[in-house]
């Protein structure tokens, strides 16, 4: 069992996908019954709300247990377990068919993640269902082949993206989570061994189809380790985006020492700055407590909370401890549909405290800490262990953070090399 980051939303997205299955053997049937009991017991014992959202859980068990016993296929058994979880009417609870998980978690040409893997060094966002290139690392394999911002990815290794993305969207039912899941899926498909190229078909700036064989480079940043999680690549950048606007961006909430050092340095260089931008676009979260430390750099008020996390037996307040010399000027936070978890806790809390103005697109609404475990029948099971309520009194889970100023990306703006979200934030800062 491990804390799941990417997997948590993947699991929700995949719950409900179905595959044709042969009739079960008695042993397989028993494994499904065992899995049913694991799911039911885990929710009973681990859900943050002992009243289980008002659901008579024993009655659900008694109603559905005969159905899982009678299930003739894996699909039927999964449907029963998914039905059980759906009674909670909450996200981050789901059954992940093992086959579906493999399908969506498929990398370009490698079934197993490896530190020797890399990618073409570009970033992607879903814009109206189209996978558009939003960043190309200078001097990268993608840059060397001439890939530009705003190009649309149509196929990877000959496989069309659109049908798969439509399936995920339909299975998920939530456009917020869909953007996160689909984006990650596209990026993961681009990953693979460093010594192999990957064929990508683009729609270029002139609406012409272009097929390129892209090499791969090591992922940006340094490899970082956190407990049982697989190694991740972490990076942080901090600089001025204008002469009078500070800017910090990091790809996930890890390496607190490095994030602190970067912010400390840019703030020292930026004492006279008119404003500051924290760019959390694409940031999937990480260590929740880092939201508190980050907030402390930008407020001098003591006793503030970003929000409260509710576990079954306790609650944890996300208290803000102000630094001695925090930045007091206008603060803009940039978010998008791939900003999740700790990013939402931070952005939502700072918005509630009226300390920051949020720019960009609605966040993923994936703020619950959840666990992911393998069931006896081989399927995955995701379950949330806590609820989080932002200081303004609203849950973030399934709701996300709504920007104060929604700025929609367009292919045209990207092709022009613009960053309309950052531009809007800087413009607001200059207007203060």
């Amino acid at each position, binding site marked *: 069992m*491990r*804390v799941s980051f990417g997997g948590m939303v993947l699991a929700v997205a995949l719950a409900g996908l179905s595959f044709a299955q042969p009739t079960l053997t008695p042993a397989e049937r028993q494994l499904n019954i065992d899995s049913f009991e694991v799911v039911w017991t885990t929710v009973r014992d681990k859900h943050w709300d002992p009243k289980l959202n008002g659901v008579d859980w024993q009655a659900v068990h008694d109603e559905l247990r005969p159905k899982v016993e009678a299930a003739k296929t894996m699909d039927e058994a999964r449907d029963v377990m998914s039905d059980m979880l759906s009674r909670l009417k909450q996200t981050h609870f789901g059954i992940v068919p093992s086959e579906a998980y493999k399908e969506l978690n498929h990398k370009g040409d490698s079934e197993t993640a490896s530190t020797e893997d890399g990618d073409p060094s570009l970033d992607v966002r879903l814009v109206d269902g189209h996978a558009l290139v939003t960043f190309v690392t200078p001097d990268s394999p993608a840059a060397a082949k001439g890939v530009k911002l705003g190009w649309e990815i149509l196929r990877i290794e000959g496989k069309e993206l659109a049908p798969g993305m439509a399936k995920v969207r339909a299975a998920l039912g939530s456009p917020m989570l869909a953007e996160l899941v689909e984006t990650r899926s596209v990026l993961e498909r681009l990953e693979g061994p460093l010594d192999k190229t990957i064929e990508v078909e683009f729609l270029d700036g002139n609406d012409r189809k272009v097929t390129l064989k892209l090499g791969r480079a090591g992922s940006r940043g340094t490899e*970082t*380790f*956190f*407990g*049982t*999680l697989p190694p991740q690549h972490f990076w942080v950048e901090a600089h001025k985006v204008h002469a009078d606007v500070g800017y910090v961006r990091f790809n996930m909430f*890890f*390496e*607190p*020492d490095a*994030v*602190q050092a970067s912010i400390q340095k840019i703030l020292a260089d930026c004492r006279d700055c008119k404003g500051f931008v924290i760019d959390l676009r694409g940031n999937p979260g990480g*260590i929740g*407590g*880092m939201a*508190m*430390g980050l907030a*402390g*750099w930008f407020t001098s008020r003591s*006793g503030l909370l970003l929000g*409260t996390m509710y*576990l*079954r*037996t*306790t*609650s*944890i*307040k*996300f*208290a*803000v*401890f*102000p*630094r*001695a*010399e925090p930045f007091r000027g206008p603060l803009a936070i940039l978010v998008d549909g791939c900003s999740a978890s700790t990013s939402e806790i931070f952005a939502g809390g700072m918005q509630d405290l009226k300390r920051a103005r949020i720019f960009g697109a609605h966040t993923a609404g994936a703020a619950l800490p959840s666990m992911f475990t393998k069931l006896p029948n081989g399927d995955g099971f995701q379950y949330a*262990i806590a609820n989080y309520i932002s200081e303004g009194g609203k849950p973030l889970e399934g709701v996300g953070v709504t920007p104060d100023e929604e700025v929609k990306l367009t292919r045209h703006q990207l092709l022009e090399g613009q960053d309309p979200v950052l531009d809007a934030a800087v413009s607001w800062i200059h207007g203060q």
Partner: protein
Amino acid sequence: MNRFYFGRRIAIGAAMVLSLTLARAADDLPKAETILDKYVEATGGKAAYEKHHTEIAKGSLSMAAMGLKGDLTTYRAEPDKSLSEIDLGGMGKMRDGSDGTVFWSLSSMAGPHVKEGAEKVQAEVSARFNAELHWQDIFKEAKTVGTDTVDGKQCYKVQLTLAEGSPITQCYDKESNLMVKMTMTAQSAMGDQTVDSFVSDYRKEGDVLVPHKIKQSAAGQEVVISIDSVTFNADIPADKFALPDEIKALVKK
């Protein structure tokens, strides 16, 4: 390390709120004073404690469920100076200390914090050197409130009341007189968190017995602290307990 009161200092932000039900004291229970005195005797005696003026403890801290492990070092000096340093894998460095006047914590993750109120009172107790000998100065009241069973052995529950904040309950083995469990509500800006600490593996360090394993549970997380070495009366540079710059700056405000 403060063998008598160690929960708050090493409860690194874990959190859990539980109702604490104290057993009703029975007439035949020994007095708390007797139990606490026997603990001092069982761990080496008052004279042995009084020989100590500083202490450095080194060990490790792990959260197995998350696969996290790191190093822990604590420095302590009379009468109430302390510094704990934890470097826990990807969570960065965490420090918690006292110069005898200011009680603070500092980490890259959560930032700098100067403790006040009940949190400060708890930190003062935690920082007190040889607290075992001074419990009458530290606590408003100590009383035996019942018995409990820890690892199959009976122990006496002693409730210690602070000047401010929630009481602390410690359980002392009926046979060995050693403390085997402590329950307290750690109070901080992050909320009240009940911490259960199970103490074991007492080993002699110099003339006194020191627990070398402390298993804490809070907020559904389990933290295990293993002590590798304890050095008494080591020279600790005076500036070891000086306030970090970030804390100094906060105090000046």
